[in-house]
């Protein structure tokens, strides 16, 4: 029972990261109909900058801000180099597949560039709160774990406020619902889209900072986070912010459970396979619910 509760808490920490990364996917998908698969690399950048700054004895605030800024700028760079120019350049398969390929490539560029800077070694971060552990009955929660969960919730709340209560948020939502209409109403689409990628980068970087404070960071963590964050976003339906958090939690708990109860070596892979199978099954189920054949497809665009 204790182990199980511990798994539920450990899952929440991962879920914090996946939902922050998932917001990035959802923003890119709903504003631009693209997949930004470099999300996990932005996480990595945030983590590496933060850890390096701490190791250089810079104040925590500087380290955090530095990590967020670098990740945000990298997010804009991905958009400016790998997404916008390619979409305006007629790839046969439409925007989603083109952006998937281009951002996979962009992610590899980031990872390899980072490897040239930082090397391949893991870097350990000083825990912010040392080894403070909060004991609740038989269950132990590290203060840094709580910080990670709380920080992620704060990040999500801030994003929600930004999207719902500010002018730039309104502009992002306007582009999401109708890009042409938005630009005709005076929204500067290019700038707003770049801003939304900056925001995705900052959120990815935040996830990286929060989780690296729990242990270590290395330049090779990006790909896995890209995949898991994307799967969380897909499980919650791409573009749907409300269902993202429970979906991310499912992925996080499954991952923790598999590596706790089964081999640690393939735990992550097995969890991934289970979630992917769930995705396939839910895909099948959705289609059947709508009449078992191509009807849903046609209703979207034949009319």
């Amino acid at each position, binding site marked *: 029972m204790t182990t199980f509760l511990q798994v539920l808490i450990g899952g929440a920490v991962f879920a914090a990261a996946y939902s922050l990364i998932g917001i990035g996917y959802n923003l890119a998908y709903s504003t631009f109909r693209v997949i930004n698969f470099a999300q996990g690399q932005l996480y990595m950048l945030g983590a590496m900058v933060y850890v390096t700054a701490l190791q250089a004895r810079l104040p925590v605030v500087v380290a955090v801000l530095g990590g967020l800024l670098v990740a945000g700028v990298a997010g804009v760079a991905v958009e400016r180099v790998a997404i916008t120019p390619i979409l305006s350049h007629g790839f046969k398969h439409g925007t989603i597949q083109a952006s998937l390929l281009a951002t*996979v490539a962009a992610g590899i560029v980031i990872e390899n560039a980072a490897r040239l800077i930082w090397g391949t070694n893991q870097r350990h971060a000083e825990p912010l709160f040392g080894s403070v552990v909060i004991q609740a009955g038989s269950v132990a929660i590290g203060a840094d774990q709580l910080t990670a969960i709380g920080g992620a919730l704060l990040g999500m709340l801030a994003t929600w406020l930004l999207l719902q209560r500010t002018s730039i948020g309104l502009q992002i939502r306007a582009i999401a619902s109708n890009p042409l209409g938005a630009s005709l109403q005076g929204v500067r689409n290019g700038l707003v889209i770049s801003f939304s990628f900056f925001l995705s980068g900052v959120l990815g970087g935040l996830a990286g900072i929060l989780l690296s404070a729990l242990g270590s960071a290395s330049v090779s963590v990006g790909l896995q986070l890209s995949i898991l964050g994307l799967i969380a976003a897909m499980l919650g339906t791409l573009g749907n912010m409300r269902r993202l958090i429970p979906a991310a939690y499912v992925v996080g708990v499954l991952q923790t459970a598999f590596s706790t109860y089964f081999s640690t070596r393939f735990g992550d892979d097995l969890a991934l396979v289970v979630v992917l199978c769930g995705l396939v099954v839910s895909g099948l189920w959705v289609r059947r619910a709508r009449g078992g054949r191509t009807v849903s497809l046609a209703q979207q665009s034949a009319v």
Partner: protein
Amino acid sequence: MSRLMTTLRSSSSFQRRTVGLALVGVALAALAFAQPFNNYQASILTWIGVEVVVLLGFNLLFGTTGQMAFSHIFFVALGAYVSAILMLKANQPLVVAGAIAVVAGAAISAVFGFLLLRLRAFYLAVASLILPLFIPALATVGGPLTGGLSGLTGVPIPFDSHSIYLGTVAVIAVVCYWGTSNLLSGAIGRAWASIREDEIAAQALGIDVYRQKISAYVLSSGMATLGGVLYGPIFGFISPTSFGLNTMLPIVMASVVGGMTWAIGAVVGSFVLVYLPELLDPFVDIAPLIYAVLLLAALRFMPDGIVGGVRHLLAWAKPVIRSRTGKIALLQEREAPVATIGPQPVALARARTSSSQASLTVKDVDLHYGGLHVLQNVSVDLCPGEVRGLIGPNGAGKTTLFNVISGFAMPDSGSIHLGHEDLIALPPSARAHRGIARTFQATHIFEEMTVLENVLVGMHVHLRPRLFPLAIQLPAVRRKESAARTRARQLLAWVGLGDLADQPAKGLPFGSLKRLEIARALAVEPDFLLLDEPAGGLHPTEVATLEHIIASISASGIGVLLVEHNVPFVMRVCGKILVLDHGRAIAEGTAAEIARSPAVIEAYLGQAHPVAV
């Protein structure tokens, strides 16, 4: 020599390809047997041959059908492992081991294709990650059989000769290339490309999208398995690290950089795939970086890859003038100029037995979208040769009724019969096979294809292509194809697009697109044709042409259901007219009767005095 050239020039592209590839195959085999290479060089060249097979398979699924599945590398691994195990542990020769592996790969891919291909394009890309992620775990579970994470060594090379093996692989690669090119240039290649371009139009033309995707997936995975079988003996060593997502990326890169919609692109891609790491040897640490930059650059500057780039360059250097003027001038002399229709082709409707006399009966169809009652108890009875108008204000449910009849929308209740056959449970493609064709309000044209190919996709129902006969180009297949091409040109000439047949459909003016869609729907040889606003956005002279076209269609015995906002036009061409408003049929009758109906005047025309007909 000059006679040979003349013969070659007058022969079909299939004959040229066959002769050319036979020569290439013989030359490669001879070169290999002459043993000019050392073992290392031979291995590298063999590897290129293997990658040609792997990439041909990937391109036909990704490039042509537009389905990106990362499971490709799993089937390469499957082929390599199954054949290596059979050779090492059961002492089977490569031929037997390879055959078993390929059959197993095809069977497994059929199962996974059945599940995965229900997912839309992008979800497929992510869900197909399952299989490659399994590889390390499977290799570990396999224990001594699969050699765990350290893999298997000592995979034997046939005849113990790298040169003979190179020659064999070269011949296999050439045969695969030949078969794939035959497929891609034939009816199945067109059907797959139509799925990539526009699944809805493909279904409306009778292509069973799901089944075609599965067959593309199985063929693609089968070729990946074959590639894996051939890969093992080259270096005699396989391990899970040779087949992970990290090896899938270079394959995708090579596919895009080479040119993923052409078979020759796979050849170019495999040279890039194998030689690039050789060239990059001093920079092996940043090889993935270079792959990624290349992929980005290709996506940005050469979305059609090297082959596409070269083709653009050739087209630019040798403009249409030289290659086509002669032909175009000739065609124009013989055929009617654009926008006036030519002589009627042999027959618009297919010669059919008693069933062609059947009528299309839609009875009491009811449909809700959420709380919106889109169709309420609508009934239509369409007879052969009749032109029935369907009018009503925007949102009256006209297009929805079309979707119900053509199978794109499922009504909550009601029935649709063709003669005595109940159509309600049939998907759109099956209804096209039964003889119901349609056009779309916003045109659904396959833009990356030529005008002629668009119409040829409509012939799919009659060509009924099968993989194997098409891949080896049986004489019967070639006869049917050439007859289909003749008929497609006749149809195009008839709607006034004869001289544009070989032009890309992209960039055609709107009026021509509308006529192209009609020609494509007629290629199905339907008994009933549903035209969704064919006159919308047309110039008055084009409308006159259209009137003529519709008159000829109905004269040939095809029943036409016509949705149109151009009321005078509808009143001229239609015998009876059905008026819908808010999903209900409010009037039905001749033009004069409709014009007098108070309900119509109130609902549709919105004014209190009758309209002049």
